[in-house]
């Protein structure tokens, strides 16, 4: 009896330690992964931007490739991530992901990005702090697009119309270039989603 109890106690302590270690992994181990891939993606993007012929504009982009860079001055001058094409877990582990099929940067329609909030460097951890009028800068190959935040809201994951060309108006023809950012809400939960909307405010062509 005593031996059984002792083994049970030892196993419980071990399990507790493993769970603590798992939390540490989520917070730091996953970030190391993202940082490694961000370095590669940003280098890849710089090369692509330098070598793409013509005006640099693309009709589509390969899954898993760097699409553009995102900067949000409100979240710090160093805030910069390479946006990866795709929203499967393998893509989102590397950085904020662009929904394939939604508008490209600067295009009329809805440019939709998702990013992790608490793990994998948590690129969208603080997008809840964005206020109306804040800049979200998208550096694409051909131009720098400056979007301005218009509103934010919390929705359930089933509300898929936030990624429509005109958010929440399925079937409506878009007239503006819009931006939608999504991440999980509340932090460390899969219950809801935090959505931030923006609209294109300026385009600066890249002349080289």
């Amino acid at each position, binding site marked *: 009896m005593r031996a059984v109890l002792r083994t049970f106690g030892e196993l419980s302590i071990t399990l507790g330690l493993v769970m603590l270690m798992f939390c540490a992994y989520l917070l730091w181990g996953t970030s190391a992964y993202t940082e490694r891939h961000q370095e590669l993606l940003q280098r890849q993007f710089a090369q692509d931007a330098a070598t793409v012929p013509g005006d640099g504009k693309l009709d589509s982009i390969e899954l898993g490739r760097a699409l553009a860079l995102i900067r949000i001055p409100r979240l710090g001058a160093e805030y910069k991530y390479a946006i990866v094409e795709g929203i499967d877990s393998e893509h*989102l582990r590397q950085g904020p992901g662009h929904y394939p099929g939604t508008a490209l940067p600067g295009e009329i329609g809805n440019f939709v990005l998702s990013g992790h909030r608490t793990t994998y460097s948590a690129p969208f951890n603080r997008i809840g702090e964005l206020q109306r009028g804040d800049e979200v800068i998208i550096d694409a190959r051909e131009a720098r697009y400056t979007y301005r935040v218009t509103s934010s809201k919390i929705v359930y994951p089933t509300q898929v119309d936030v990624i429509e060309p005109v958010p929440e108006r399925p079937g409506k023809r878009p007239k503006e270039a819009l931006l939608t950012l999504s991440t999980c809400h509340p932090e460390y939960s899969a219950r809801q989603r935090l959505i931030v909307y923006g609209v294109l405010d300026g385009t600066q062509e890249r002349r080289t």
Partner: protein
Amino acid sequence: MYGLIWRMLPGGTAVKLCGTLILIGVTAALLWYVVFPWAEPRIPLDRVTVGS
């Protein structure tokens, strides 16, 4: 459980201590590099997309 492992480790106290440290290291590395990366996508902690 830990008593049994300690008794099964060969050598004197110093050698046993070394063996213990190696075992802890191997277990931790296995968890960190194999088990945790496998388990993480299966735990819905940080789902960020809508729809699926």
